C-alpha cells in the first residue's frame, strides 16, 4: 500500500480512538508506525508529537459539549503536570518493568469491573 495512504489511515484510526474513548490514541499510532517499519523508540516519540494536537482538538470538543467540570479538571491538570515531571525524573531510576506489569494488571481488573 502507498505509504501516504497508510499514514493517513493511522491518523484517522488513532484520532477516532482518541476522540471516542478519551485515551489510547497513542497506542494506535505506535502500532501503526511500527507495522509500517518505523523503529520502536522513534515510533514512540512521533506518537507523542501527533497525539498532542489530536488530544487538544478532542479535549476542546468535549469542553464545548459541556461534559467537562472546570474546577475538578484544573486540579486534575495541576496534579498531572507535577506527576509528569516526577515521572520523567523517575524514568530509568525505578524498575519500569515491574511498574508496567502492575499497570497492565490494573487495566485488566478495571476493564472487567467496568463491564460488570
Amino acid at each position: 500500500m502507498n505509504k501516504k495512504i497508510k499514514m493517513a489511515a493511522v491518523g484517522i484510526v488513532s484520532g477516532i480512538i482518541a476522540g471516542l474513548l478519551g485515551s489510547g490514541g497513542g497506542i494506535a499510532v505506535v502500532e501503526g508506525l511500527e507495522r509500517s517499519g518505523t523503529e520502536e523508540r522513534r515510533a514512540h516519540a512521533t506518537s507523542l508529537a501527533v497525539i498532542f494536537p489530536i488530544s487538544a482538538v478532542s479535549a476542546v470538543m468535549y469542553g464545548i459539549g459541556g461534559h467537562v467540570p472546570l474546577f475538578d479538571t484544573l486540579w486534575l491538570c495541576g496534579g498531572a503536570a507535577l506527576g509528569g515531571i516526577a515521572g520523567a525524573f523517575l524514568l530509568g531510576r525505578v524498575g519500569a518493568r515491574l511498574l508496567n506489569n502492575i499497570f497492565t494488571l490494573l487495566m485488566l481488573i478495571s476493564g472487567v469491573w467496568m463491564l460488570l
Partner: protein
Amino acid sequence: MIHALPGAVFGIIGGMGLGGGIVLIPVLTLFMGKTQLAAQGMTLFAYLPMAACALCLHIRGKKVKAAPAASITLFGCAGGAAGYFLAFIIGGDILRAVFATFLILTALLRVWRHELCKKARHNATRRQKQ
C-alpha cells in the same frame, strides 16, 4: 481538590511513558462518580500539560519524524473530532462497555508484546552461545 491525587499518579505513569490516561478514566468513573463522557473529556485535558513536557524533551532529542507526523496529525485531528461526535451519539452506558472492552484488549496486547520481546531476546542469546 481531591482530583489532584489521581492526576499526579496519572502524570507519573504517563511521564514514564507507560500511558496513564487509560487507567485515569476508570478511576474517575468508578471512584469519583463521573460519567463516562466527563471522565474522557477530563482525561484528554489532563494529558495536555504532561505531554507538552515530554514532547519538549523528545524534540530536543530530535527523535520526532517530521513528514509522516504532519499527515498523521492532520487526519488524526479530523478523526478526533469525529470520534467525539461518535461518543456523544453512542452515549454513556454503551460507551462505557466499549471503553471497558478496549481496556481489556489493550491489556492483552501489552502482555502479548511483552512475551514476543522475551522470545526474541531468548533466541538472540541462544544464537550467541552457538
